[in-house]
């Protein structure tokens, strides 16, 4: 939520710019600016601006492709298509790595160092940890703990990335599962409460019977 709040204004700014810019070169520059911005991790709103379709089929089409990659892709996608895409600045490389970490965190709670080093093209643990600390955790896009013994990063929270349409079904399914599990749990709790009440009543009844019997026995003894 914090991330969304922080980037809402930035998204708004770029969307407004994208809507009014005329020249293709200016739109390409805007894309470069957006993909380099240190506090922006969401690009689907900008992608949705109809004006950007101007870039299709032009010499700047690769910039539009780059924007799509930043919205939905990762470092490995850039590597496999680098010949068709513009060269990245240092800021863009950092951003893409951050987005890659977010994407990996979508799939797993525990991210092995080896996997991270491979995906992020980092050669040593110190460099990886410095990146995760300074550019991910301190940037507020992930929260977690680094475990050197197990050589992994345990993610507690990760900001959401832009969604591809095909991801929606998974999300709905997960939410339905949550709903189902929560309902079942509530029913189970309800049943347990009823059972506890019933046992308590039976206990009281049994106690009363015993007390009456004791009283009767006392009377007959007298």
């Amino acid at each position, binding site marked *: *939520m914090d991330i969304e709040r922080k980037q809402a204004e930035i998204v708004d700014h770029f969307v407004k710019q994208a809507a009014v810019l005329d020249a293709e070169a200016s739109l390409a520059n805007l894309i470069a600016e957006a993909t380099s911005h240190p506090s922006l991790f969401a690009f689907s709103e900008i992608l949705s601006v109809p004006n950007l379709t101007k870039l299709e089929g032009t010499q700047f089409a690769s910039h539009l492709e780059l924007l799509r990659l930043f919205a939905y892709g990762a470092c490995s996608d850039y590597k496999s298509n680098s010949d068709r895409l513009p060269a990245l600045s240092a800021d863009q490389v950092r951003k893409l790595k951050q987005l890659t970490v977010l994407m990996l965190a979508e799939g797993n709670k525990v991210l092995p160092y080896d996997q991270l080093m491979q995906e992020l093209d980092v050669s040593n643990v*110190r460099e990886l*940890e410095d990146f995760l*600390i300074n550019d991910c*955790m301190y940037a507020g896009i992930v929260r977690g*703990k680094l*475990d*050197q013994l197990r050589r992994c990063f345990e993610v507690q*929270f990760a900001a959401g990335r832009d969604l591809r349409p095909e991801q929606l079904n998974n999300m709905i399914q997960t939410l339905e599962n949550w709903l189902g599990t929560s309902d079942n749990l509530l029913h189970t709790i309800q049943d347990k409460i009823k059972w506890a009440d019933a046992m308590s009543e039976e206990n009281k009844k049994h106690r009363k019977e015993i007390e009456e019997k004791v009283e009767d026995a006392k009377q007959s003894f007298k």
Partner: protein
Amino acid sequence: EEQVLIIREKLAELYESEQQWSKAAQMLSGIDLDSGIRMLDETYKLSKCVQIARLYLEDDDAVNAEAFINKASFLVSNSHHEVLNLQYKVCYARILDLKRKFLEAALRYYDISQIEKRQIGDEEIDEEALEQALSAAVTCTILAAAGPQRSRVLATLYKDERCSKLKIYPILQKVYLERILRKPEIDAFAEELKAHQKALLPDNFTVLDRAMIEHNLLSASKLYTNISFEELGALLGIAPQKAEKIASRMIYEDRMRGSIDQVEAVIHFEDDTEELQQWDQQIVGLCQALNDILDSMTSKGV
């Protein structure tokens, strides 16, 4: 005695005019304030003690200054002289600072920075002086030993709006958020420090070094479940054995929670809360996030 007193005061004035602070202080300290022959007024005694302490402090002589401030402590509680009381407070804070009792000094500087009156007796209190006191409070807090007590003072300072206007605010923010400080930031902070705040300690670290290493170690404990001595040393910029030693001292002094496995050469950091409590907190966080989403949806008319 009356005549000796007058002579001593005059000589002290002369020494002061020549900026020979310690000599002026020595001259005044020869006045017998506890004389059985003459009855000296309590305010006069207090003013002399404070004056002598201030003179010694001009030469950074905390030892002698403290002796006289301690004498003043007995007199200040009954004093209604606002100017003297303020001077006493400032002296006391500076002595604590010089003696490297940074947390106590910070609290006193902070107290001074919160003075509301702009005129006390004949003395005008300008905003710059209050800002200096606040800045001194922040500096001392950052230099204080990392741990729960310092965290509380940091929180107070961070939440004080006035601090956001200080030049030193960026580092205060990082220290409060328990973030690792890097060399350029530490060097920039070092430029604002006084000589005694950068003094060399017996273990060959400076006062600043030690404060920064301990802070970074505590920051690392928030980021790592465990870390090898070697990596910790690399992170802190010191030898692994020194990193282990500092960590063990902090754990022993209860300023950091953890354990050391010397066989594996690893430090295990422990959270203040148990695993199940952390789990609870995660679920609370999830519920809050869910609430935020529902609020967003409502505000957007979904």
